[in-house]
């Protein structure tokens, strides 16, 4: 008996599954009816979806005349306009530069996610190299290529850049704000609290609108910089203020005794913080941090309101001509898939981090 249960044969497993199914889904006639109905409905939806997206779809840009007849998806619009969606208004001949720049940003983000790079010096080097490469490639001035000004940056290239710049600037800034809020000096503590509460009381849209439109009226011309940098700084500040509160939650979870124990062992306050407290803060704050990062990725779409040609804006432009106007669903599906890939990867990375950090708990 014991042996049989340790080595269940294929048919046994099937029997167990059938048994569970019978108990869970087909216990009574009404149960059976509901199960069959819902399962059938799901099958039907899946089939319609597959039929629309793959079987009856038109794929090539030249075949667009067939689109009106087949009833399937018209992926021709993606074939013809994907470069607009990915790179916005970036000049057509220079797309190799924006492609490389995109890869540089993705590589920077992926590498900074690897534990191997988790030291201050390595991270800072990586970020300077990665973002430097992006800006140099996109701008083109320093590598002797035609200059492309920031108002022509767009599409996925812009979304990725804004997102990673906001998170990478905002994360350390958030940590600083969280530490400042715990400071023993009343002025530092007060200023940090005021800033955090002030920014958190404003909607993101107002913050960005102010950064894009109001700040240029306040600052002298030479300090203005490009709209894109102002918006990134404004967005990063917004992110930092929320992230500071996430970190504060992490700090509050640390018993006071640990600080005292650190002091008793003769550690400096900095050592206590960096060796004992911070690793735990990061662990406590991890789920909310991943959440913040994912939300920020989606929120980058708000920059459309202040006239940035992000991936959603260029998607709007992609179906914004007569020949492609009827196929907006395909364009939105494509952009949705792009968002999904990035956000799903982010949340999977979060799961990996959680598993990794759980080692400390064992």
């Amino acid at each position, binding site marked *: 008996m014991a042996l049989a249960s340790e080595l269940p044969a294929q048919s046994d497993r099937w029997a167990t599954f059938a048994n569970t199914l019978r108990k869970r889904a087909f216990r009574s006639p009404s149960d059976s009816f509901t199960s069959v109905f819902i399962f059938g409905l799901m099958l039907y939806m899946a089939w319609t979806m597959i039929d629309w997206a793959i079987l009856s779809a038109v794929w090539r840009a030249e075949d667009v005349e067939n689109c*009106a007849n087949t009833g399937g998806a018209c992926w021709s619009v993606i074939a*013809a*306009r994907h*470069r*607009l969606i990915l*790179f*916005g*208004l*970036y*000049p*057509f001949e220079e797309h190799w530069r924006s492609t490389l720049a995109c890869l540089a940003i993705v590589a920077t983000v992926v590498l900074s996610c690897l534990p191997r790079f988790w030291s201050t010096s390595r991270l800072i080097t990586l970020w300077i190299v990665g973002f430097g490469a992006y800006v140099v490639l996109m701008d083109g001035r320093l590598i002797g290529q035609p200059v492309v*000004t920031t*108002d022509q940056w*767009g599409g996925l290239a812009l979304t990725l850049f804004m997102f990673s710049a906001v998170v990478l600037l905002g994360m350390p800034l958030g940590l600083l704000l969280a530490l400042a809020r715990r400071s023993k000096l009343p002025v530092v503590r007060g200023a940090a609290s005021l800033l955090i509460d002030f920014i958190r009381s404003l909607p993101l849209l*107002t913050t960005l*609108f*102010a950064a*894009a*439109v*109001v700040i*240029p*009226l*306040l600052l002298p011309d030479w300090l203005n910089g490009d*709209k894109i940098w102002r918006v990134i700084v404004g967005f990063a500040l917004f992110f930092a203020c929320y992230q500071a509160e996430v970190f504060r939650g992490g700090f509050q979870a640390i018993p006071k005794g640990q600080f005292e124990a650190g002091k008793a062992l003769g550690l400096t306050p900095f050592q206590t913080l960096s060796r004992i407290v911070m690793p735990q803060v990061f662990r406590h704050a991890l789920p909310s941090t991943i959440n913040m990062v994912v939300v920020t990725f989606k929120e980058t779409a708000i920059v*459309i*309101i*202040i*006239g*940035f*040609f992000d991936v959603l*804006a*260029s998607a*709007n*432009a*992609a*179906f*914004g*001509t*007569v*020949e492609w*106007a*009827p196929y*907006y669903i395909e364009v939105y599906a494509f952009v949705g898939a792009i968002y999904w890939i990035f956000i799903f990867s982010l949340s999977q990375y979060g799961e990996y981090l959680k598993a990794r950090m759980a080692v400390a708990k064992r």
Partner: protein
Amino acid sequence: MATNFAKIACAVAFAAGVAAPVTAAAKSSTVTAIEERGTLLCSGHNGSYFGFVEVNDKNEWKGLDIDMCRALTTAILGDPDKAQIVPLSWAQRFPALQSGDVDVIIKATGWTMGRDTEVGLQFSLPYFFGGTQFMAHGDLGITEAKELDGGTICVEAGTTIERLAGNYLKTIGIEHTMVSYEKASELRAAYLANRCDAFAAWGPFLAVLRATELEKPDAHIILSDQLSNEPIAAAMRQGDEEFVDMVNWMIAALLIAEEEGVTSANVEEMASNPPNPKIARLLGVDPGMGERLGIRDTWAKEMIAAVGNFGEIYDRNLGEGSPYKLERGLNNLWSHGGVLYAPILD
């Protein structure tokens, strides 16, 4: 300082969605700034506005408004490619103009009293006329707005159309529910999904939508009511009359060229052998055209060679040469039954 404060107040008021009175003081000439910069900053769109601002397969801007901007750029800088199109949303266009992000707004913008006074804009001659109309599902079997009683009307949020449609229906005593959408594509989807019986929009936009509705172009009817006839004009910051003159005469030159039969094809020939004194003046053969605006005498010639006259611009983007095949109608020259006319070139 006071000027700055007024401008900030204006931008802040816009952020909050209300308008504040503004008096903009004189600034240095916009034309000089454009010449120093070497580019002219024009308004684009954060997406696409059919026929007026679109992006082609090569990621380049095109459309009626873009061509008007390229015409102005050629007039001032001699090269249409020096136009720099800054993507702007509808809500952002006026603050962006005030803060200097753009030199001029050429973005299907109607000339209203509020914009002219409170918002502190200065408008050019109208270069396009478009009225607000209703489009309804054909199967309702109606032809005018009187028959819309109890219906649901969709509009785009934050435009003049929203207020206009409400006022109009109230005036003719029609009970209705108004639903507003942020984006034209949402509005379109809502209407096609039968969430509204009719929707109010700009006449040209309705025609464009109907033309692009591949499946059943006849299943929709544009109601006969003309709610308005809105003059569309270029908008500039107040306080730079010289720049307003420049834009006005850019538009005038495009119209005079069409009136006199000067096209991008025959402009060189006309310039070498001008058939009448007006054309000679227009194309800079006789001096005066540029001097009085502080630029080159041949600006109109270069402009027409680069983008064509107004008729060519219209045909290429909205008319016979475009997929929209929109009738000239009101947008024809006065001599052809339209309402477009140029001031006198002396």
